[in-house]
């Protein structure tokens, strides 16, 4: 089993009509089985990063690999193991849900029509209506069903739940981890799914993630396990003594405070309290 499901090396992306880098030297290594929350303000580069990872956008510099295969040259075997849902659902307007499933299902050997139909029912998605007549939320649901139906080993989701109500989001979060037609107790089937998901609904991410990657202005600010952030990241006043430079994750000038990693500043280990994902986001974007 491959050690890293996703690797990115020094990605640089500057759109033609812009003088600003959408991605500015982004490197990333995601271990297999991780669930990574990608968090940042609008325009931080989350979608650009996901598009480069999946091979839809070619960066000016750098490279990305998915499941040990170059993102820009994915072979069929690897492509079948990947599921992607873009921020704006990419559907055929004249086809209904059933037709989408049938058409797209043909491209995948691990396609399971029953799984897809079950998920559609769970999400309350009507499959007989043409895509361009579906509500925004239902289009998003169809996009997600299509991303999951072939039981991918790697899921890349760009704000997949932005139009969904809280109950539907819960159902989808359950579906993200489940494999209803794969026996959980059968030997040798510990095939874990790696997921990278960008979302603004941070309370959802807190239930799901093993890791969080914060982005700002095209750069990764900090990437770590979520448990480590809860246990070690603290906010302290700017003028605090005994703070090594490498302990400082972010300086918040406006409020005169520092976000520190207390593994590198042990004397501050018991200062303050753990921050919620929401609070970390605010801190890192101030």
């Amino acid at each position: 089993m491959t050690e890293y499901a996703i690797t990115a090396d020094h990605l640089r992306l500057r759109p033609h009509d812009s003088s600003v880098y959408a991605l500015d030297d982004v490197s990333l290594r995601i271990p297999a089985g991780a669930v990574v929350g990608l968090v940042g303000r609008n325009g931080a580069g989350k979608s650009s990063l996901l598009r480069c990872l999946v091979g839809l956008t070619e960066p000016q510099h750098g490279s990305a690999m998915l499941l040990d295969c170059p993102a820009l040259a994915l072979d069929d075997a690897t492509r079948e193991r990947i599921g992607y849902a873009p921020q704006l659902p990419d559907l055929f307007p004249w086809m209904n849900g059933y037709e989408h499933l049938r058409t797209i299902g043909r491209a995948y050997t691990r396609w399971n029509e029953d799984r897809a139909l079950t998920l559609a029912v769970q999400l309350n998605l009507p499959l007989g209506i043409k895509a361009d007549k579906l509500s925004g939320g239902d289009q998003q649901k169809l996009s997600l069903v299509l991303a999951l139906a072939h039981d991918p080993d790697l899921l890349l989701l760009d704000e997949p739940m932005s139009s969904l109500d809280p109950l539907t989001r819960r159902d989808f979060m359950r579906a993200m981890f489940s494999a209803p037609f794969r026996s959980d107790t059968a030997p040798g089937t510990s095939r874990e799914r790696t997921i990278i998901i960008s979302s603004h609904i941070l309370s959802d991410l807190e239930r799901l993630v093993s890791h969080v990657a914060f982005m700002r202005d095209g750069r990764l600010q900090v990437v770590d396990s979520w448990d480590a952030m809860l246990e070690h990241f603290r906010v302290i006043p700017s003028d605090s003594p005994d703070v090594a430079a490498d302990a400082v994750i972010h300086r918040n000038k406006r409020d005169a405070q520092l976000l520190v990693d207390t593994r590198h500043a042990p004397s501050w280990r018991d200062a303050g309290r753990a921050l919620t994902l929401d609070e970390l986001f605010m801190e890192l974007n101030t």
Partner: protein
Amino acid sequence: MIFDIAPTAPTPIYRQIVEQVRRMIASGQLKPGDDLPSVRAVAMHHAINPMTVSKAYSMLETEGLLERLRGVGMAVAGNSGKSTRHDKAAMLRPALETAARTVRQLGFSDAEAQALFQTCLNELTKKERHD
């Protein structure tokens, strides 16, 4: 399910599960031999990452509180029944330390705080009698 999980609380979810199981074993709510809900069941019920539950169960297994029964899942270990007063005190301290900090921040005197705590205990007793 038997767990009460608050995903946005500052405590990591796996730690919430670990501490709840410890408390339930200490109080006798969970007895040696009792089955715990499967990782999958807990994850699906709360819509959380199954790895989080798995991590909690593994930690409890390492501590000796849980044991893995083949084909069944996790169960309370045979020798985990007796929790000393000392162990229980260690489990109570964090909640009391948090309360103590709040008392100081709000400027209550020790006597006022203790009186308030006694009121809370009395209210609980009254509620338990009614149930």
